């Protein structure tokens, strides 16, 4: 049997994001600074380190980052950055769709449950949401060619599970949980917003005030 430490190291080296939802034991282990240091020392031999992102005491997400950069590492990171930038818009649209369908004012965050059947029913009953889903599922990230809501929704969920944004704790139920990787995505948008001075929050607020008027 692998110890928690071994398990955490294995998951990190596989490129996984460790958050409370995906791996509570590992997450608790890494929340202890001493343990994190031990893992860090081990990963240091492979030119890697424990990286964290997130806010608050419960929202931390751990993943594996490089310690030093050479050309190869830079290439990998640039490729990953391109990948995540391509995923930003489709996933952001999907998150807004989910939020609107559930009539909630909070977007999906780590640990939030999502019921595929409920979502599907709402989307099927609302033409605007149906159209939105059609557009989202035809993005290359999801790559659907199907015209029916049923297959589109299922494909989008399947892809999001593959990409690690959702998990399905019980394979017999259509209940999904959002993972810490979604929080990572928010951080990426926030970073781009701050780095390029896009003022996204102000834009959104202005637009919503415009709607109110």
């Amino acid at each position, binding site marked *: 049997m692998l110890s928690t430490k071994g398990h955490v190291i294995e998951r990190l080296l596989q490129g996984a994001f460790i958050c409370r939802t995906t791996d509570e034991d590992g997450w608790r282990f890494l929340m202890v600074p001493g343990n994190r240091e031990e893992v860090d020392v081990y990963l240091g031999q492979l030119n*890697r380190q424990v*990286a964290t992102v997130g806010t608050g005491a419960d929202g931390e997400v751990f993943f594996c980052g490089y310690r030093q*950069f050479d050309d190869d590492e830079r290439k990998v990171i640039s490729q990953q950055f391109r990948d995540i930038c391509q995923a930003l*818009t489709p996933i952001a649209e999907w998150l807004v769709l989910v939020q609107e369908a559930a009539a909630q*004012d909070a*977007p999906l965050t780590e640990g939030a449950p999502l019921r595929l059947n409920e979502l599907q029913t709402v989307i099927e009953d609302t033409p605007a949401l149906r159209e939105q889903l059609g557009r989202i599922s035809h993005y290359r990230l999801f790559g659907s060619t199907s015209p029916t809501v049923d297959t589109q929704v299922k494909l989008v969920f399947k892809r999001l599970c593959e990409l690690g944004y959702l998990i399905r704790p019980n394979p017999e139920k259509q209940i999904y949980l959002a993972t810490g990787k979604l929080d*990572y995505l928010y951080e990426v948008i926030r970073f781009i917003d701050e*780095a390029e001075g896009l003022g996204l929050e102000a*834009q959104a607020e202005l637009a919503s005030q415009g709607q109110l008027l």
Partner: protein
Amino acid sequence: MSGTLRQSGVRFLRQLGRQAEPIMDAYLAGSVADDTLEPGVQERLVKDGILYRPEPGADLHLRRVVRALLEEALRDERNRQIDANTGSALASFKTLADHYKEAHHHGDHAAAEVYLADLREHVYAFGETLQHGIRVLWSRINNEFGYVGTLNAKIRENELAQTQVSELLSGLELVSFQALAETAGDLRELRHLLVTNLQRTLSACTQELSIVQGRLLELLGRFREIRGRTRLLKGWLLHMEQHPDYEVAPHAAARSVPRLFNQAAPVLAPASLDIHDPTLEAELLALLAPIRAQQTQDRPAQSLGDAPELTLHTPDAFEVRSSPIRMAVDAYFCQVIDSGQAISALDYHQQETLPWDAESWLYQVIGGYDGLPEAQKHHFELDMIGEPHPLYSGNFIIRDLRLWLA
């Protein structure tokens, strides 16, 4: 006097009980229309101070005290009222304490007793009001302001709660124990009530209020973050819509990679099984068992309809044909037996001008020898003629074979 008070109190409570339904309707709906109540009932309720008309022409509303009683009894979470008026409470303490002191001074013990009881009631009520306020705050924190729908409303509610907390705290600051001690003078009862008791209540409440304040700030931070995220998402989509040719700058290519994008490539692939490890035998067998079970299940079951008709007939005769090279090897063995001498396999090959190449022939002879039954085998000896490999030890190159009778 207390007899009449008691009677009218009981009558009042009965009145409440009798009119429970219209009162609860008024509580839930906020008001009752004139025509829903019988005129007599309405008049009585207004006269007893249970309902009142806030302005001419308006519907009847529940009096604040009755509403507060219900909110408290029902633990209604919409109850936002918090009484932070410490100043007036302190003033009433002082007044009652002065009454008590005067009566005490004049030796009127009966009156002093009444004043003390009154003061005690006020002090306890003050503590109770504070604790009630804190309880209300906690109940709002615990369900995260669940009684309002939108996030913005929650943020506003949180801000209201924060001002209430700071008002309560600044009210508590008004309490000066020095002044209270002076008021109490050297009267033991008074000192106990105004100093010891109040101090205990206040320190507990102040401590709890500071915790409440911390939690409120934390919640507010979370609400703001959630709102920030929603705005971030919508802002991003809006931006992409307004600037279709927008491309994210290559942040990850900067000289110093931002921490956020420093994500290492996965390096670990699943390990393979070591089937030679005897310690794993139990696990391996356990793994193997379901695979076998699956295979037998997966085998397509032929339906009976597809099966050809089964008929019994004598099987076609067939014979096993031995290959010519095997027959040649047998002939070679016979030759050795006949001559009783050792014969080289290659010599025999040349002598008989066999069609196969020498190497195949040698292999076949070795195969033929090894293939003999054990009883026959030890009648023969097979010598391998050759030399070890010049470079690689352990390799023996066979040039020729010699078979002879043992």
